[in-house]
């Protein structure tokens, strides 16, 4: 039997996809993210770990300007995607989010058919000229999300009728459908059972052949299993960022060690 867990493989890429420097985020008086600088690789999975409230989601949301939608949030610093400043006034945040897709903790399919869930993004971004092209994108996205075989005979069924794990893969298909280059995932497995989790992890391992994947996870084992790079956040600081194998066998900072070995929550 095939092991469903992703295998730790060498990092295939050395190309930077995202380069963040001196990123600070304030929510009103709350200084939530302090001077974070990090380079994120293309075609690799980068995991963000750290105790609740340390700023993982906040930083993730900086990468596709989701924080723009939070009234109290102030973001400073520089974030480059392929060398281009994503906070440049000429950048359209909606276009940016098609390039930098996001998958959330709780699967949140639209109350529509499976087909429409996936077709929605390509439609509003005008990515297709006719239904044949749309059909093609829907199929290829569902295939990339490892869901096609399970739903191909019921594309008209409601997305909300799928199991939790299938719903999450549907959300991944939806994110993939707009042809993104980066996939941000905020605790994508925390509402899933172990089998569905293993399937999503296996999927993540495949997605990294095409995308730069950034995943926030509370499961240390998950970070160790799926990622090639790991960043440890603590109290709004990026404490340590290194190869995942290094972080889990020989971390340099005592705070990292204390966290991953279960000594601080």
């Amino acid at each position, binding site marked *: 039997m095939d092991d469903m867990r992703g295998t730790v493989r060498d990092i295939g890429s050395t190309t930077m996809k995202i380069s963040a420097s001196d990123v600070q985020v304030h929510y009103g008086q709350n200084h939530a993210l302090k001077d974070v600088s990090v380079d994120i690789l293309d075609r690799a999975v980068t995991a963000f770990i750290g105790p609740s409230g340390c700023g993982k989601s906040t930083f993730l949301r900086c990468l596709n300007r989701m924080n723009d939608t939070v009234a109290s949030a102030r973001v400073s610093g520089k974030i480059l995607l392929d060398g281009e400043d994503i906070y440049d006034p000429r950048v359209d945040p909606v276009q940016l989010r098609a390039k930098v897709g996001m998958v959330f903790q709780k699967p949140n399919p639209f109350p529509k058919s499976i087909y429409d869930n996936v077709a929605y993004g390509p439609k509003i971004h005008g990515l297709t000229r006719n239904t044949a092209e749309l059909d093609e994108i829907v199929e290829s996205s569902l295939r990339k999300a490892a869901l096609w075989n399970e739903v191909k005979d019921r594309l008209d069924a409601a997305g909300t009728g799928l199991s939790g794990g299938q719903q999450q893969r549907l959300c991944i298909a939806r994110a993939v459908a707009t042809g993104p280059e980066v996939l941000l995932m905020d605790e994508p497995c925390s509402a899933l059972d172990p089998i569905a989790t293993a399937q999503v992890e296996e999927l993540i391992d495949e997605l990294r052949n095409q995308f730069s994947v950034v995943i926030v996870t509370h499961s240390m084992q998950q970070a160790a299993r799926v990622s090639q790079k790991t960043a440890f956040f603590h109290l709004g600081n990026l404490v340590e960022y290194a190869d995942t194998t290094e972080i*889990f*066998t*020989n971390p340099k900072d005592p705070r990292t*060690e204390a966290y*991953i*070995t*279960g000594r601080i*929550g």
Partner: protein
Amino acid sequence: MNTAHILTAFDRDLEAAQALVVRMGGLVETALLDAAEALDTRDEDLAARVRAGDKAIDSLEDEINTRCALLLALRGPTAGDLRTVLTVMKIAASLERAGDYAKNLAKRTSALAQMPQVPGASGSIRRLAKAVVQMLTDALDAYIRRDLKLAEDVRRRDRDVDQMYNSIFREFLTHMMEDPRTIGPCMHLHFIAKNIERVGDHATAVAEQVIYLVTGALPEDERPKVDSTGTGT
């Protein structure tokens, strides 16, 4: 890392495994000392006790492996915890091998008791055994105290032990050529010397595990191996 885990049972499990490996180290040290003493004084009773004592060492290793397997399965240790578990298992394996060599020395003591003495041999073997037992003692001390310097020192001393073994080898060769009646005992004594030298290798392996435990990396330079006997393995 000396702060406690949130799960206190995790700390208890790790400490128990480490206590067992220290106890195992004590048994192996005693076995080696007794085996060397038995050899030196041709004490067959003592040699018999060393042989019988190897069972306890083996079963300690089994217990250590069982506990470590459980730790890995149930607690998924990482970082320093992971290195603690891995080094416990490796040190236990080295100690088990060293224990086997002590048993082998004891076996050969009985065989030697029936043979003529080889002049000068017991002195050189005694010195070699003393140096090696000291290496093992220091390696275990280095482990208990997480003492990098002492571990490095043990590693360095393995070189001296290799040299002592080489000169013993030449000494025996000379005896055998001069007087073929010494061939029987010299062959035994040579195996004894070789086995003691191997114990030195295991003491060095323990010291290297200490270095890995503390620094997260094994020493990179290949340990200098001095073997001019042409019988090197």
